[in-house]
Structure formats: structure tokens, C-alpha cells
């Protein structure tokens, strides 16, 4: 079977062996969501492209991903977010403490086979762009189902790296409200995306 049709763990194993083709394949699979996230956070195309390259180069150089601990997609998203927020922090001093989840996220990325929609099939991974697209539309659907107010705080925290108290100030609502909205939003999303994130 050609590398392009292999599941992520197999491709990553090839990457480990120094196979540039494997990097090429993974780029084909994940560069778009990575770039979109980078662009959403950094709000500048050139920087987003630069960060996209950095994320892949880092994956190549450090091989820091551990397939036993979760899917590559989630790992790459966490890396991207954390590094994008790092850049923002470097740019904007007053917001530099914003990154709340990135690091702990990396360390906690264990468990969940966030992949196959067939939750009962461990070892199935979102391989091709097609299944990534399916995943994306499920996420959109789920987001559309949670209250706008919950979505708002979740997105402010995730993309802008704002702390809960910063969100409190921006939206002029009590801290308790921010907390309960974001927690409820996350729990609801988790419920809606159960099939995607359930551990096998």
C-alpha cells in the first residue's frame, strides 16, 4: 500500500525513519487545518504560512508526537495553537500570559483515539482529506448546536488565548458566568462529538 493510503501511525513511523515522503504525506493531510488555525490566531497570512512550516519542521526534527497518546491531528492542533499564542505573546506584552491550555494540553493528550467516526473501531484514524472534511462538518454541526453565548467564550479563550478574567472584562459579565458558560459549552461539545473523541 502506498504511504499516502496508510494510517497516521504508519506514516509517522516512516517519518521517524527519516522518510521525507512521510512528511510530504502528513503535510498533505494536515497543512490546511493547521494553516487555518494559525491564520485565525495570528491574523496575518505570511505569518500563518511561516508557522505552518514551523509546526511541520518541528514534528520532523523533534519527533515529539507519541501515537500512543492521541491522534496526530489533535497533537498538531495543540502545537499550532500553543506556538501561535506564543508568537502573539511575544508581540503583545500585555497579553503574553494568555496561553492557558497549550502546554498542559500537550502533556495531557493521552488516551482518546479521536479518530474514526466508527467509535467502536480502535486503530482507525482520520486518514484522507475526505474524512478530515467529515470531521470538520461534524464539528461545525456540533458548534451550531450549543448556545451562541457558550460558543463565544470558548472561542475567545481558545483563539485569543484570553483568560477567564480577561473575557469577563471584555464582555462585561461576571466571572462565574464566564466559567459556567465555557465549562457547559465544552461539556456539551464533548457530548455532541462523542463519537470523535471517545477513547476506544
Amino acid at each position: 500500500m502506498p504511504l499516502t493510503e496508510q494510517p497516521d501511525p504508519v506514516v509517522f513511523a516512516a517519518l521517524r525513519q527519516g522518510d521525507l515522503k512521510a512528511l510530504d504525506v502528513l503535510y498533505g493531510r494536515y497543512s490546511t487545518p493547521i494553516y487555518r488555525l494559525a491564520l485565525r490566531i495570528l491574523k496575518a497570512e505570511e505569518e500563518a504560512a511561516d508557522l505552518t512550516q514551523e509546526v511541520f519542521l518541528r514534528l520532523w526534527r523533534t519527533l515529539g508526537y507519541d501515537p500512543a497518546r492521541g491522534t496526530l491531528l489533535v497533537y498538531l492542533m495543540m502545537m499550532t495553537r500553543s506556538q501561535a499564542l506564543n508568537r502573539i505573546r511575544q508581540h503583545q506584552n500585555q497579553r503574553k500570559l494568555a496561553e492557558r491550555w497549550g502546554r498542559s494540553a500537550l502533556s495531557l493528550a493521552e488516551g482518546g483515539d479521536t479518530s474514526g467516526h466508527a467509535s467502536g473501531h480502535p486503530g482507525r484514524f482520520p486518514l484522507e482529506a475526505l474524512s478530515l472534511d467529515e470531521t470538520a462538518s461534524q464539528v461545525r454541526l456540533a458548534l451550531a448546536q450549543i448556545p451562541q453565548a457558550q460558543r463565544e467564550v470558548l472561542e475567545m479563550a481558545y483563539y485569543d488565548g484570553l483568560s477567564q478574567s480577561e473575557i469577563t472584562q471584555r464582555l462585561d459579565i461576571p466571572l462565574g458566568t464566564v466559567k459556567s458558560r465555557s465549562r457547559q459549552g465544552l461539556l456539551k461539545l464533548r457530548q455532541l462529538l462523542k463519537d470523535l473523541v471517545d477513547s476506544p
Partner: protein
Amino acid sequence: MTAHDRPNLPPEPWPELLAGYVLGDLSSAERTRVQQYLAAQPEAQAEVAELQATLNLLPLSLADGVAPPAALQAQLLRAAGNTTQRPQAAAAPVTAPVTTPVTTPAIQPGGPAARQGSRAIAPRPVWRSLPRAVAIAAIAAAALLGWQNLQLRSALQLARQDLQFAQQRIDHLAAIETQLANASASLAKYQEIITLLRLPENRLLALRGPAASPKPPAAVS
């Protein structure tokens, strides 16, 4: 220890607390309770991982139709071709110093300290009429301290996360180090053998008693 160990206390709202843990909005007391809970409950760890994964699927909802520039792929492959892989040892994408695995995160945030410095020398225009200036400075200092306190606390939380991450890295590195030690031990052995084989007398492959070994070098010279 934790509240859930003591049946007479009301049960903790674990789902909310776990969500808060993932979102980073817990008080330090709450965080400690959650950490204890997680240590005792493997299935709660899985729950945290799933919440984490959920959160990181969010960006998949971002606008369709946006894609990285076409040239980036070739550029990346060129760059990767020129980059040697340095597994794990070089992995630590952590900004906090990895070298201090102590559980006192107070020494961690180098950033905030630097920031404090730059803030402290912010220009103060009212500097001539001393008493008033002093009062203003005092107020400013108080405000500054409050602000810094807030910042330091966030920094501390971040540093804790860094630390947790760094400690995992260290464990990993320790494992690698052991492997490395083993490997270089066997390497040393092989090298010894190679040296032996390279001796001019190497046709005598049969093992000889120790009495014989000091001789050959002498014989060579």
C-alpha cells in the same frame, strides 16, 4: 484527603471541574483536588484527554476555502531535507527552563521578572514637586504591585503547566539517557574488541590468558 474520600461531604461536581481544569479556570485549591482525583481515577484521566481533544477539534470549524500557499509544501520539504532529526532530546518546545525539575515553580518565570523591570522604569512626568510625586509614585506602585501580582499569578499557573510538561520530558529523557548509557557501554566493548583485532598480532584470534596480552605491544615496538 479529597472530598470524595469523605462520604459525609457533598460530592464534587466533577464534570464541571474537569472541564474547568482543561479550560484552565480553576482556583489553585480546586486544581489540587482535581489533580488528586485524576491520580486516583484513570477513567477521569481519559475524560480529561477527551475534553482536551474536543477543544482542539474546534479549529476544524474554521472557514472553508482558506489554504496555505502552494509554494509552502516544496519549501517545507527543502527545509526538512536540510534539517537533521534530533528525536526527543531536542524536542522540548517549552519556554520554561527544563533544567530545574524542582517543585518550586517560583524560580520558573524568567519572563515576568524581565517584564517587571521594564514596567518599573516607565516614565513618570510628575517628578519635580517631591511630596506629591511621592504620593503619586506610591499610588502607582500600589497599582503596579496589584497588576504585577495578577500577572505573576498567571505566570505561575503557566509555569506550573510548563513544569508539568517539562517533567514529562525529563522522564522521557531519563529513559533515553539510560538507553544511551547501555548503548555506549556495548559500544565501548565493541571498540575494545576492534582495538584488539587491529593489533598487528590479530591473526591470533584465539583467546589468550592475561599473561600474554601485555606482551604484544612491547613486541611491536
